[in-house]
């Protein structure tokens, strides 16, 4: 059978295993790199296989052994997910950490109402997440161990004029993760919601964001997320100052929020 591509863990050389969905660029690529550096064996999933293969090759060359395995995968191919998860579980020889990072944002103008774009974002950001999180949660539920990380966004905290569907997709993801946390904490599983602010990624350029602040690199975001994983946090804003800002924004009364243009 020998599907296993790396030697089994030993007591003196333990090995943790992770899946990163959406690993080809941005936060996902930085996270894959960070986890490999921390000694994880990572299954890296993404649509863009050329980027993915390069990323894994670089990581493995730097480590001098196999630390990252590439899997070409489109999260909107929902029906393929359970079988792929099983294959990865066998390939890695177990699973300690699952990260859902896939996310897209389509630019919509203030007077644009386009269901096709909305649907695209919901399919990748929310439905894909749920299709992965269900079987992963089932596995961890039965094992009584594991960590689940969902990369949501500060954008999910309010519905804004500029991004109705993106806000919705992330709000749904945050709520879904919260429910999973309530289900799984009692089984010994740690569920973390990550809410990044502005991160220098493709999403940011796709969103056409002009005025940004507290801008961080994907590596900085990955470091913040790694700290949350290490300390088994629950909901974490990255960088941390967003927690305070979003606390204020969440409490801006509707009669004011309706007049704002961000």
């Amino acid at each position, binding site marked *: *059978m*020998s*599907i*296993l591509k790396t*030697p*089994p*863990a*030993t*007591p*003196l*050389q*333990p090995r943790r295993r992770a899946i990163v969905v959406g690993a080809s660029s941005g936060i996902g690529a930085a996270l894959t790199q960070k986890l490999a550096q921390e000694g994880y064996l990572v299954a890296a999933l993404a649509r863009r296989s050329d980027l993915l293969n390069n990323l894994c090759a670089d990581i493995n060359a730097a480590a001098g052994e196999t630390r990252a395995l590439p899997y070409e995968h489109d999260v909107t191919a*929902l*029906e393929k997910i*359970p*079988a792929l*998860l*099983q294959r990865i*579980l*066998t*390939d*890695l*020889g*177990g*699973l300690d950490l699952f990260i859902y990072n896939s996310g897209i944002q389509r630019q919509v103008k203030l007077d644009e109402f386009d269901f096709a774009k909305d649907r695209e974002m919901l399919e990748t950001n929310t439905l894909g997440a749920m*299709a992965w999180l269900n*079987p992963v949660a*089932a*596995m961890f*539920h*039965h*094992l*009584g*161990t594991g960590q689940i990380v969902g990369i949501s966004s500060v954008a999910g905290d309010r519905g804004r004029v500029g991004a109705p569907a993106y806000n919705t997709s992330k709000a749904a993801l945050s709520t879904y993760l919260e429910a999973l946390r309530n289900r799984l904490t009692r089984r010994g599983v740690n569920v973390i919601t990550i809410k990044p602010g502005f991160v220098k990624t493709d999403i940011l350029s796709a969103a056409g964001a002009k005025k940004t602040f507290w801008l961080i690199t994907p590596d900085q975001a990955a470091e913040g997320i790694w700290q949350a994983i290490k300390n088994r946090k629950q909901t974490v804003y990255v960088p941390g100052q967003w927690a305070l800002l979003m606390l204020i924004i969440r409490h801006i009364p509707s009669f004011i929020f309706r007049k704002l243009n961000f």
Partner: protein
Amino acid sequence: MTTPSLPYEKLTNLGNFGHSLQAAAYLYQPSAPEQIGEIFQFARKNGLSITLRGAGRSYNDAALNSGGIVMDLQGMNRILAWNPETGVITAEPGVTLQKLWQHILPDGWWPPVVSGTMYTTLGGCLGMNIHGKNNYKMGTIGEHVLQFTATLPTGAEITCSPTKNGDLFYSMISGMGMLGVFTSITLQMKKMHSGLLNVHAFAVPNLSAHLQAILQTAPENDYTVGWLDSTATGKGLGRGQLHTARYIHEGEDPEPRKTMQVQYQTLPATMFGVFPKSSIHYFMAPFMINPGVWLVNTAKYVASLREGHYRQPHAAFHFLLDYVPNWEKAYGKQGLIQYQSFLPKETAEDAWREILATSNRRGMPSYLGVTKRHRPDKFLLSHALDGFSLALDFKISAGNRSALREMLQHFDEIVLAAGGRFYFAKNSETSPQTALRFLGAETVERFKALKRRTDPHNLLESDLFRRVFGE
């Protein structure tokens, strides 16, 4: 949307005896031989491998299969036939040594070979070809197997004995469960005339005296085992205490009926008459640091200077590991590993002198050392030789992994250079190169050829197998 074909509800985190590893696997627990074939078919259909598991008493990854199927055979635990006249017993592989001796002792019999814990299963005992404190006299458990039946991954049912399918007999016993599944095992038990043993305990002041004493006293005793103070250095390096034991002859025990009752053999339920034994490992844990262990070992050595002659029930003499339930947990969260080396009697002293001195010099002393006397056997993946073994327990800590690993690799070199061998039920870090060197290329190739024959689709694999025989 398709539903997953693999049942998540069967996913289980399984561990080992040293609490040093955990691996998730789909756990299947057949209760009858017919179900074994179904599990093989299921594995093949889903592209998964299978590891066989009994009581999970190996210190390493022998009964773990990361991400695959584990077939736990503890449910197949019936004694199928017992003849108190001849002492021949036939049992399923999930029968433990505990169930075995408790079944036969009242009739005046005892298993010819037992491990240091009675919770091991017969299937596991054969797969690893266990030895006891009488290895130099009675050999391994395989030498007392008259016959076994097995289901092969091909679905074939076979019967093996030393004269029938002899190649499979001598390789499935010692074959780590990688060639097929034992379905029934027929063993010859040993006649007893008492439930007690005559035990002699005495101290040995250093390694040279330790090994000499084993050599001299072993032939005239039925059992010999040494405790070695692995924290002693300098002149006292290798000091310890030997326990030798002799069977009691017919007529020596005035009440054999009584001493052979199971109740008579039961280990005491409390320590010092006060603490329930299940709590003792909590009291031990604070001592499991270098100075604490030095103190305990030194105190034990000083106590052993008083020579002892006494009679002891079989169970109390043999099953030292069961005295303190969950003693392994005293080693803490990261667990322990056992490093056991087997060395020819000519080279053992020098090699172990270096190993013991190095471990103390590097600040990673073993916390417990145990010595035994051995003889070679005919089984394919044999660990035994004409010499001694030294089993050393090491505590794993969050910070010592790489240093400990590096030290054990160094020890492997010392042992290999001295013509030594290793045991697949114990060491957790043995590399394919090391295995190849002590087994020899011819043995490894013979084993792989037999595996291709009984398991052409490589359904049987364990983490141990992939570690030691992987490409």
